[in-house]
């Protein structure tokens, strides 16, 4: 048996298999409580706002947004990068903790992966929306055509982006879905109603729990995981290339791929923390997601924050050291002390300073502080993208072009809409899918207790 080098119990309460099944499957088998309906209403309202914004965008054009000839990317791409960043948590959780044999991830990875899927879906909306002529979006695919045939510009990071995002979306859905097949089978077997049995049965694809199946299934999961590991690194690196490949001061930096990747993990883990704290509260899964889990995440965040912070410093240092006047201007003048200084310092505060409180056990142990700091990181990461995208474009090479950027209601509506989509997705997820990998947790539920027993 593969043992985690982690000492102690991973699932509290020394539950039997049946208890594990019962506890986790509970939300899918009972009527949702009031908070669920309240949250769903909120999500629906947000979705409606998004639908309105979507209509405005499609019916009248991108002019309804706040972007202009100088700052041609605004909230659309900020939100895109932000969501993509959040979408890194799930896969990263599964993959890296799998690679590092961190068994404790089992309790969280299902939720994290669901988060990934919905966040990437939200993110994937924006590249489509930010096109001037979205009805011609298929031009971006290299399909045989009667135009010569005319193919694509493979030099464009946007094409890499499209590939990376769609690959990542497909991969995370696959990972997520194949990860939950045994659990779907569990629900199928437990459900009384024929309808429910049929639906879960369809998705469980005839899972029977046989060792032969498990064997191939494990192998598949390992392959997918192995493929997803480099992918998860590359996705945000490629998103970073959107900026790094360009010539705009503040974008044109080689540090971007690793910096973006760490940022993504950072924001993703923060979002996981936020959501887990909330779910733990309302779904009564404290036994599975223990205080220790939260503390681990906090440690990861603290580490990520150090990297992020040093990246900020490095960027500024290089801007000065390189001697490129435009870059120095962007970093030292525009961001640190100019028009965007408030955004810049919010970013620094939220991302580089606040998580440092996790050095102290008191903060790691306090649910309140965990929650506050995780939210702050989410905000900080949004500001990071805002600072990168808007400040660089707003004041670039020729001062005659310099322009400010102000989002419109439509911009905000779209962002709210994606929140609605994300929330609705997550709510549906906790309603219909076991939020913790039952089969995996059963494998670790006895850990700690057996050792104790052996000791006894």
């Amino acid at each position, binding site marked *: 048996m593969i043992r985690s080098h982690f000492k102690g119990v991973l699932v509290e309460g020394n539950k039997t298999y049946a208890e594990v099944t019962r506890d986790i499957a509970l939300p899918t088998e009972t009527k949702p409580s009031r908070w669920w309906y309240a949250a769903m209403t909120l999500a629906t309202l947000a979705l409606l706002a998004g639908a309105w914004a979507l209509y405005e965008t499609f019916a009248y054009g991108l002019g309804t947004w706040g972007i202009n000839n100088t700052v041609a*990317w605004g909230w659309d791409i900020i939100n895109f990068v932000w969501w993509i960043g959040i979408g890194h948590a799930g896969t990263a959780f599964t993959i890296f903790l799998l690679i590092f044999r961190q068994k404790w991830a089992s309790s969280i990875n299902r939720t994290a992966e669901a988060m990934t899927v919905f966040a990437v879906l939200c993110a994937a909306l924006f590249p489509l929306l930010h*096109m001037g002529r979205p009805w011609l979006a*298929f031009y971006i695919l290299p399909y045989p055509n009667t135009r010569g045939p005319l193919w694509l510009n493979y030099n464009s990071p*946007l094409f890499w982006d499209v590939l990376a995002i769609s690959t990542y979306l497909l991969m995370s859905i696959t990972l997520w879905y194949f990860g939950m097949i045994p659990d779907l089978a569990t629900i199928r077997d437990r459900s009384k109603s024929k309808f429910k049995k049929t639906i879960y049965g369809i998705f469980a694809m005839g899972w029977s729990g046989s060792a032969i199946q498990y064997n191939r299934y494990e192998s598949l999961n390992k392959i997918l995981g192995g493929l997803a590991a480099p992918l998860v690194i590359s996705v945000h690196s490629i998103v970073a290339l959107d900026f790094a490949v360009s010539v705009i001061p503040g974008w044109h930096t080689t540090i971007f791929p690793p910096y973006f990747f760490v940022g993504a993990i950072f924001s993703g883990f923060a979002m996981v923390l936020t959501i887990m704290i909330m779910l733990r509260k309302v779904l009564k899964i404290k036994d599975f997601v223990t205080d220790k889990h939260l503390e681990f995440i906090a440690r990861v965040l603290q580490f990520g924050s150090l990297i992020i912070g040093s990246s900020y410093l490095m960027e500024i240092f290089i801007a000065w050291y390189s001697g490129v006047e435009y870059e120095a201007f962007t970093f030292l003048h525009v961001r640190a002390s100019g028009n965007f200084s408030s955004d810049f310092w919010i970013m620094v505060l939220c991302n580089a300073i606040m998580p440092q409180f996790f050095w102290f056990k008191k903060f790691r142990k306090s649910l309140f502080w965990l929650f506050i700091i995780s939210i702050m990181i989410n905000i900080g990461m949004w500001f990071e993208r805002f600072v990168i995208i808007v400040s660089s474009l707003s004041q670039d090479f020729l001062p005659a072009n310099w322009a400010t950027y102000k989002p419109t209601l439509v911009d905000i509506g779209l962002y709210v809409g994606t929140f609605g989509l994300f929330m609705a997705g997550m709510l549906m997820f906790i309603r219909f899918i076991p939020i913790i990998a039952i089969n995996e947790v059963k494998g670790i539920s006895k850990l700690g207790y057996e050792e104790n027993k052996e000791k006894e």
Partner: protein
Amino acid sequence: MKKYWKSLEEYNGTHFDPGEEDQSGISTFELLSSENNESKTSRRDFLKWCGFSFMSATVLASCESPIKKAIPYLNQPEDITPGMASWYASSFYDGKDFCPILVKVRDGRPIKIEGNKSVMLTHGGTTGRVQASVLSLYDTAGRYHHPFYNGEKTTWEQADRDIAGKLDSARKDIVLLTSTIISPSTQEVINRFKNRYNNFRHVVYDAISYSAIREANLLSFNRREIPFYRFDSAGLIVGFNADFLANWLLPVTYTRQYADSRALRKDKKEMSRHLQFESGMSVTGANADKRFKIKPHEELQILQGTYNILAGNGNGSEPEQAKNLAAEIRKNENKTLIVSGTNDIKVQTLVNAINYMAGSYGNTIDFTNSLNLCQGNDKDLQQLVNDMEAGKISALIVGDANPVYDYPGNGFKNALDKVDLKVSFSSVLNETSELADYILPSPHYLESWDDVAPANGFYGVAQPTIRPLFDTRQMQDSLLKWSDNDLSYKDLIKELWEKQIFTKQNKTGLFTAFWQESLQLGVFTPEIESVNVNISNEALATAGSLQKATVNEGWDLVFYESTALGDGRHANNPWLQELPDPVSKVCWDNFAAISPVDAEVLGVNNGDLIRLFEGVELPVIVQPGQKEKTVSVALGYGRQRSGKVAEGIGVNVFNFVEFKDGYKKYNVSIDQPVKTKAKTDLALTQTHHNMEGRAIVRESVLTAWQNDPASGNELHEFNEAHKATLYPEAKFEGHHWALAVDLNRCIGCSACVIACQAENNVPVIGKREVMRRRIMHWMRIDRYYTGETDNPGVVFQPLMCQHCDNAPCENVCPVAATTHSDEGINQITYNRCVGTKYCINNCPYKVRRFNWFQYSKNKAFDYNMNDDIGRMVLNPDVTVRERGVVEKCSFCVQRIQEVKLKAKLENRKVMDGEIQPACVQACPGKALVFGDLNDPDSEVSKLFKDERNYHVLEEMHLLPSVGYLTKIRNV
């Protein structure tokens, strides 16, 4: 019936020869409007909304393709080839500005105005207003479509009968009030009218008056004339409140002369020195080597002092500026040119006297070709208004003038009520016509016959290039009719030319041949006797006598003509409204320019409204270089009745112009402006004015340049030496197009911007969108201030797509919509573009434009592209872009293609200078040069090899195909 006009190659039309009889009765519009595009559901449009799905495939099957009709000519006219443009020489004259032009006519409709290159007066230059005038032709809302009587539609026959009857029975005076008429034939028409009606008189006035210059010359030289100024022969140019590069008299001519005098080449090492004295920052002042801020009253003091010093009467108490000026003038004996735009006879007499002392007459000022422009007489106008007020006028006929709008105060409007018969001839909606009994619409100048004599020894013709779009008739025809002449105006022109002008030449003995040639060339310039003048003692005495200027230590309000709108007669032209002011970079508004010091005193910032008079509040622009305690406000705004574009835009300040000693005075003293709480947003196209120490516009001074031609451009050599590349540099077989911009010749007048807009179907987006920084102009003129804020140096830099050979925009387009051509052009393919806007971001020059909305056929953008007739101005050789598409300067690739094809058809190579993109063509200063870099003898190759040549952001190794020549100042 829905009227469509669609130009593909074929359209419906009958024989139309501008040189032949005007076949009235059926308007071109009706001919053009036949429904030859019976558009049903377009599969393409449908698909657009379906996206691409399996479902759409089936729905498609039920869609029908639109049926397009191809309607040929019944008889194909010889000079019209479907699909090819024809050119007609003509003359632009709007009552104030004159410009010889060529009209590009495509399929029977004028689509573009270009300067007439063969005319030495302008060398093919134009101004923005001339370029934009073609749009006014198609201004449906801004033109009268038929005659009106008391606001009701009437017929010409009815109006003729009524008016002739009323004129006959008129007991008191009949007055024809026009702006300056430079047409000999129209003068003849008026003479005939005068012969018919004894009680008739003709009053000429100009909204922007040059009355004092004429009166001063009458006093000084006994000639009520405006001489011909020669800025190109001047070594020292001194301007007092004269914006001669953008507005004053003949700006196109002066710009060319000025640019020539300031151009530097290997074989021309000297340039003129330009001093400008003014209160507000004008385009001319922005170009000056040294600019002095003065309050309006100081002008007289300085001139007086200078004259006294020059005349040897200096007593040392003269202002410092006068001493310096006198010293400079002494250095430039016979090479000095002093001009003043102030409408004050004292000032003008002093200017004459100083010019005389400096030996300018015969050298830089010439009465041989004296100008016929701006003959208006302020005193006559005042007299007329007094007569009207006194009820002495029975009939007032206004010919293409708008005194209700531009007469100082409400005097004219009030007096108008006391006139029995008010007739207005007007090609455009205006305030005066609205108050007239009869509105008799005259055709646009592109629909009319006319002749012009803007200067002595210069005759031009204006010929119609399209059949009248509306039920209009020329004023001259009406006057002829009312004076019982059967002759049509066109015949009269021919008659007059045969009698008076034909005789001035001896090249041909056949009038028809002479007439044909004049029509083809557009102008006729006979040899005339040169005139030498001597100043009168009286004038010198007047100049010498100590004149105490009324010193105003308080605030002054200075009126000026805006570069875009001039005196406001073209205000309804959306292209001009959206043309950013070259200096302040504001469009769609007039504003109060105040100095930074005053802004601090008043506690105001850009956009804050200040109250100048009771009820007159204007937004502030903090204008570096504005004289303290002066406020400059542009005339020409605040039109009440002009069509939908201009109405309600800005404030009309003509009301506050004063009459002083019989002259209109374009500055008044005011109380300190009051800050109001209100704030408005100004449509600024540039909000940062400092180069932040970047080598964007490179400058040097003459002495440094003479020592080292690369002075100020040292970075170029450094960058060339430090070029490093990962990939081999691209080689271009065949052509490699490039554009050179001589910053020494560019004065920032923005004619190129409008030319580009006209040529490339650039949409107008309105004030709100401009405020959101989304202006669509493919080329813009960047303006930077250098030096201190209270009197900064100003540099202009035309910036269009740089067509980089290592273009960063090309790399990032995922769908290959922007690629590099084999001729070095950075191509944008609109139909492939999906609008990711990545290229816009990655363009370091930010010259790419995005179609944020659907700008054509969209009610929200109710300008010419939302109008069937307005769309007739569109260039059929350039795609009208759909929303969501990126666009930018293409080096006018359609012109390149056209010329290449022409060369192939003529079995030869493309000649240097044969291809002229619209901006190059329009430039009055010839600051832009386009050509083939692969041809070592081409002008552009030579300029690219010049030591002054550099590229903007060249350190990025983008290899732009646009080069700039450093700006050299003669300080």
